[in-house]
C-alpha cells in the first residue's frame, strides 16, 4: 500500500481540518423512501454541511444496524431497491454536489454482484470507495486487491475491544479514514457518546492511523462537537434517517445544518 496522493475522502477531511473544524460524515440509505427522494436527501445533506456522504446499500440482514436503519433498509427493499440503484444514486449525487461519496455495504451483495465488477461500476459512477461493516481486512483479500486496482478507498472498522495488532491491521489496510466504533453496540441514537471512543482514537493514532472518524451513537451537534475535539470527523446515521422518515428532505437539511454547526469548536 504505497498510496501517496490524497484520495477524495482524505482531501475532504483534510480540508475541513484545515478550516479548524472536524469533518461531518453523513449516512443515508439509497432507495429510502424511494430512489429519487434518497438522491435529493443526500444532496441536501451535502449542501447543509456534510463533508463526506456515506450511502447505505439496503440489505436483508443488517446485523450492525439498530431499529431506525433496519426499518429504512427494509422499506427500501420492499419498495424494490436493486443493487444497481446505488450506482445511479452515486452518479446523480456527484453530478449535483462536489462531495465525495462512500458506499456502506454488507458484504454479500458485493460478492453476488462480483467484487471487481462492483468496484469498476462504483469508480465509473464517481464513488470514492466502500465502508464494509461485516468484513475485516483479514477476510477481505479480494476487495483489497480490487480497491488497489481501481484506487477506491476502503474504510474498515475498529472497536474498543480490538487488540493493538488488529488496530494496526485496520490502520494499514484502510484508505480514506479508519472508522472508530464508539461503543460496543449497533447503530442508533444515544444520549451520550461512549468515553471508550476517545481512548480508541488515541490507540488508533498510536497504531499509525492518519485519519480517524468516530461513528455509532452520535446524533446531535453537541455530540459532534465533543467527538471532533479528539477525532478528525464524526459519522452520523440514525439521526439523519430518522429526520428523513419524519420530515422528508427538508428534515434532513435541518438536522444536517445542526450537526454541521457542531463541527466548529
Amino acid at each position, binding site marked *: 500500500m504505497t498510496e501517496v496522493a490524497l484520495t477524495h475522502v482524505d482531501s475532504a477531511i483534510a480540508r475541513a481540518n484545515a478550516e479548524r473544524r472536524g469533518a461531518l460524515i453523513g449516512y443515508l440509505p439509497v432507495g429510502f423512501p424511494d430512489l429519487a427522494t434518497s438522491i435529493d436527501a443526500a444532496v441536501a445533506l451535502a449542501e447543509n454541511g456534510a463533508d463526506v456522504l456515506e450511502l447505505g446499500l439496503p440489505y436483508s440482514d443488517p446485523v450492525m444496524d439498530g431499529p431506525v436503519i433496519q426499518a429504512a433498509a427494509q422499506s427500501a427493499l420492499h419498495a424494490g431497491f436493486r443493487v444497481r440503484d446505488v450506482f445511479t444514486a452515486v452518479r446523480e449525487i456527484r453530478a449535483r454536489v462536489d462531495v465525495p461519496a462512500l458506499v456502506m455495504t454488507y458484504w454479500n451483495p458485493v460478492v453476488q454482484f462480483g467484487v471487481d465488477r462492483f468496484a469498476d461500476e462504483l469508480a465509473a459512477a464517481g464513488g470514492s470507495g466502500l465502508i464494509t461493516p461485516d468484513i475485516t481486512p483479514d477476510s477481505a483479500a479480494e476487495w483489497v486487491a480490487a480497491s488497489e486496482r481501481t484506487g477506491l478507498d476502503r474504510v474498515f472498522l475498529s472497536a474498543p475491544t480490538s487488540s493493538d495488532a488488529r488496530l494496526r491491521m485496520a490502520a494499514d489496510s484502510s484508505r480514506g479514514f479508519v472508522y472508530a466504533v464508539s461503543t460496543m453496540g*449497533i447503530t442508533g441514537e444515544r444520549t451520550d457518546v461512549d468515553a471508550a471512543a476517545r481512548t480508541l482514537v488515541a490507540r488508533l493514532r498510536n497504531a499509525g492511523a492518519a485519519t480517524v472518524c468516530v461513528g455509532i451513537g452520535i446524533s446531535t451537534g453537541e455530540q459532534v462537537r465533543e467527538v471532533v475535539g479528539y477525532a478528525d470527523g464524526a459519522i452520523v446515521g440514525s439521526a439523519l434517517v430518522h429526520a428523513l422518515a419524519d420530515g422528508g428532505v427538508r428534515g434532513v437539511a435541518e438536522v444536517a445544518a445542526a450537526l454541521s454547526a457542531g463541527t466548529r469548536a
Partner: protein
Amino acid sequence: MALRDQIGPDFGDYGGRYMPESLIATLDELSAEYEAAKQDPAFAAELARLQATYTGRPSIITEAPRFAEHAGGARIILKREDLNHTGSHKINNVLGQALLVRRLGKTRLIAETGAGQHGVATATAAALFGMECTIYMGEVDTKRQALNVARMRLLGAEVVPVKTGSRTLKDAINEAFRDWVANADSTHYLLGTVNGPHPFPTMVRDFHKVIGEEARRQVLELTGRLPDAVAACVGGGSNAIGIFHAFLDDADVQLYGFEPGGHGIASGKHGATLSQGTPGILHGTKTYVLQDADGQTMESHSISAGLDYPGVGPEHAWLRDIGRASYLPITDDEAMSAFRLLCRTEGILPAIESSHALAGAIDLGKKLGRDAVILVNLSGRGDKDVETAGAYFGVLNGEAATESPADAEEAQS
C-alpha cells in the same frame, strides 16, 4: 487428510469468519477457550458426567420393523436423540458451550431458536448453571411453537419475539448478534447450529459428533456391520453433521441430508438451501444461501420451524460439493405422512423436523431394498408439534382422523 479431521475455519471454499470487527475479539476469546478446554481432561470429564447423568447418554437405538414394512423392507434403525433430556439433540451442544461459558466467567446466555428446541435446551442449561437467559425467536415461530415459548418461560428465560425481517429464525439470529455486540463482556451467544463464524461450525459439530460415534458402535453391535445409509434432516445442519461425522471416512456408508421442501421446489416456497441455493455469505460464514440475484436473503418456507432457515452450515456445503453427502428435499406433505406413519407403526411421535429424515428413509429403503440397513437420526420428539400436526390431520377439537397407515403408505408412493 481424513474427512473427519477438518477443524475449520475453512471447509474447502466455505466457512471462515465474516463478522463485524466489534465481535472479533469475542470470537478469538471463544476460540482460545475452546482450544484450551479440548486439551483439559477435566472439561471432557465434566461434559461426560453431564451427558451420562443429565442428558441420558448414550441415547439408545431402536429398530423400527413395522415402519420398515413401508420402506421397501429395509432395516430401519432409529438413533433416539428424541429421548434426551429436553427432547432433542440440541442439549448436546448447549451443555458443551455452557461449560465453556462458565470457564469464560460469563453469566448470561443468549440464543436464537426456530422450533424452540434450542431455546428450551439453552434455558435449561441457564437454569442448571445459574445463568441469566434471553432467547430470540421470530414472532411467526412464537405463534406456531407456543408450547415451547411457555416451556422456556417456565425455565426462567426471557423470550423476545423478533418482529424484524421475515420474523423467523434468520431474523432471530440477527437480533442475537446485535445483543452480543453490545453485551459481549457478560454474555455468550450460544449459537444453536453448525453455522455462524468460526469457531461455531467446528465447535458445535464437535459437541454433536457423539451422536454418530455412539450410533456407529451401536449399529455394529446390532447388525454386525456398518449401515448402508445414514439419514438426517438438515436445517442449519447440527443433528445431521452430528450423526454423519463418525461415518465421513467410511466410504461405503452413504450420507443423506433431507432438506425442507415446503410446498414443493416448483412452488418456490421451501427451505432447500443445499439443493436450490447458491454460495454466499450469511451470518458470518460462507455457505449455500437462498438468495436473490442481488444477494438479498430470501425467505424460506417449511411446516417445520426448526428447518425454516435460508442458510446451512459450511461443512455441509463442502460435503455437498465434494460429493460425500447428498442433500434432497422432502415436502411438508411427505414429512407429515412419515410423521403419522411412525406414530402408528412404532408408537413414537417424532418431531416434524426429524420426520423429514423419516420420509427420506422410506424413499431410500425402497431404492436400496430388503437387505439394506438405514440409520435415521430421530433428532427430536414431536410433543411440541402436537398442535401443528393435530391441525394438519384435523384431529383437534374432537374431529376424527379416519385414515389408516395403509393410506399413509399410499400417500408415499
